[in-house]
């Protein structure tokens, strides 16, 4: 179970949160200009790392705010929490075979 440190409410159980998947995906400014392949990549392709992931969470049953989390998908350690729109923090890459 994850204990997620909400920037507004402090550490809370994962059951209070909704998961938003990979962070930092920019919505294409002009979707109509994309090829089918580019659009499909935007809609369906997500990082699926065994190691460091940067992802979005929303405190659905708390303050109802979105924020970003950097997490290790193997140890489940939450490395840092940072606001929406912020640059991804510089963290050493983690990869497991």
């Amino acid at each position: 179970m994850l204990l997620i440190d909400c920037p507004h409410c402090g550490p809370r159980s994962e059951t209070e949160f909704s998961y938003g998947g990979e962070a930092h995906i920019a919505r294409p400014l002009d979707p109509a200009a994309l090829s089918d392949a580019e659009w499909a990549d935007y809609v369906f392709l997500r990082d699926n790392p065994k190691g460091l992931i940067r992802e979005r969470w929303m405190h659905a049953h708390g303050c109802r705010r979105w924020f970003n989390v950097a997490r290790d998908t193997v140890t489940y350690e939450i490395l840092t929490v940072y606001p929406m729109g912020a640059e991804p923090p510089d963290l050493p890459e983690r990869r497991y075979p």
Partner: protein
Amino acid sequence: MVEDFLRQSPLSHLGLATHARAEIAADDGVALAERPFRTVITLRGPGGEGAFASAVEQASGLKLPQEVGAITGEAEGRQLLCLGPDEWWLCDGNSDAESLLVALEDELAGQFASAVDTSDNWFALEISGPQATDLLAKACPLDLHPRSFPAGRCARSLLSKAPMTLQKLDESPRFRIHVRRSFADYAWRWLSDAGREYGVSVLSA
């Protein structure tokens, strides 16, 4: 707004009044009491000590709490609960929502803010008694130890999967819970059932 004499508690079918008591029975560990018609006004606006905060203070007579989880006001009277960085509840046990709303709208005129009467969306109940914390801990993932959740704090969380807003009123301890009106029956029965091992008294509304 429904006329007062037409209003019904969502628990009216349980006939709680027939076995309600004034105080918790001596050998019971928890007491439950419904608080069906409380006023809740949902406020949205910018945090900080700006125009929004002073407008709310003008209309309600209470300082706008700035930290999520903080409460200003009196447990039995009017309260402001900070539930998010730009979201508050103005709660009141007695005064009618309409006059409060009018006052708020006057003060907030021209601001990028909103005040909405959500009273009929909510149903409140109170849990008290020596084992109130134990009972609540079965239903909710919050750390309820007085060290991290002392009297005078609030939090939104889950009550056995049902979204709730929780306040700790005092260290006796006594908690107040708001759940959506349609969850009233579920919440009540769930707590009554989970509290059986402690003994549950029903207090009059």
